[in-house]
């Protein structure tokens, strides 16, 4: 890992700490209150706040996890540098695709 990736990984980690706490709090709230799927969708659909919240969360996760996977592949796989970097970029794009798809599914009216 070089200094640029190091800063990106630490910055996204710092960003995810409050997002994760809010995310867990939301899960507790939804389950404790017994919210149904339609109750939840009623709150998220058309909401700019939830779109931004989970949009930023997905972006941070995609960047953070890709950099971490790059280190794992460096240390534990026989992949060459170029193959490794292509693999982690594709992994990050896959995470972003799946994540944004899920966000779109709950926020689009």
């Amino acid at each position, binding site marked *: 890992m070089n200094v640029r*990736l190091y*800063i990106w990984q630490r910055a996204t980690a710092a960003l995810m700490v409050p997002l994760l706490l809010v995310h867990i709090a939301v899960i507790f709230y939804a389950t404790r209150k017994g919210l149904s799927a339609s109750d939840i969708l009623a709150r998220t659909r058309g909401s700019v706040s939830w779109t931004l919240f989970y949009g930023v969360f997905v972006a941070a996760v995609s960047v953070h996890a890709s950099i971490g996977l790059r280190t794992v592949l460096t240390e534990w796989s026989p992949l060459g540098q170029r193959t490794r970097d292509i693999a982690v970029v594709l992994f990050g794009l896959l995470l972003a695709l799946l994540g944004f798809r899920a966000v779109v599914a709950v926020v689009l009216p």
Partner: protein
Amino acid sequence: MAGMLTVSLWRGGTEGRYVDYDVPMRETQTVLDIVTWVQRNCDATLSYRFACRVGMCGSCAMTVNGRPRWTCRTHVSKVVSRGRLTIGPLENLPVIKDLAADMRPFFEKWQQAKGRFAPSKTRSDPIERIAPDSAARVAADAAIECINCGVCYSACDTVRWNGDYLGPAALNRAWTLLNDVRDAGNVERLAAVATDGGCHACHSHQSCQEHCPLALNPTASIAGLKRRTAQAYLRGEIKP
């Protein structure tokens, strides 16, 4: 203490095997004494490396019962396990023969990390006064006593997993020079330790600190390098 000790010594190069020797136990005996006894009494072709025998030169480090240690400062009574001792070359380095590891990768990484002092003055300039209690000097002094034995390099998991990683000793050396106000090579040094395989590859497992015979803390030095390289990068002074 009396009787015999069964000592397994690595024989051969990278491809080799452990060979058992029976060595008489003494009241006070270092691991280096054991190796020397085998060479003088059992097999004169046994290869190993030592010089000072008093923990100053850093050349006698080997793997003793699974841990890298200075053999000259390790008493047998402290490490013997069920009357057995297993001694091999330092790990994470190529084996030249028997107990002698090839230290070239270790010292090449020192050079890669810009571990050489870059003078900022000439011999005609007056000697610079350095306050011993200045923050930079205190930081340098805390790490400066390294004698390059390679124990930390051998103990490091990241070195084992990532062949490009510069290792604790080279990065610790870079940290001491970074805190030497007389040094003029710090931009190049920060750039050298901020690349892939540099300080950011360290996972802070702290094996280097745990095993260092001088009780130095290379992990702390590496943490300092992480901070300083991040600051330099954000200011645009270095590029990865």
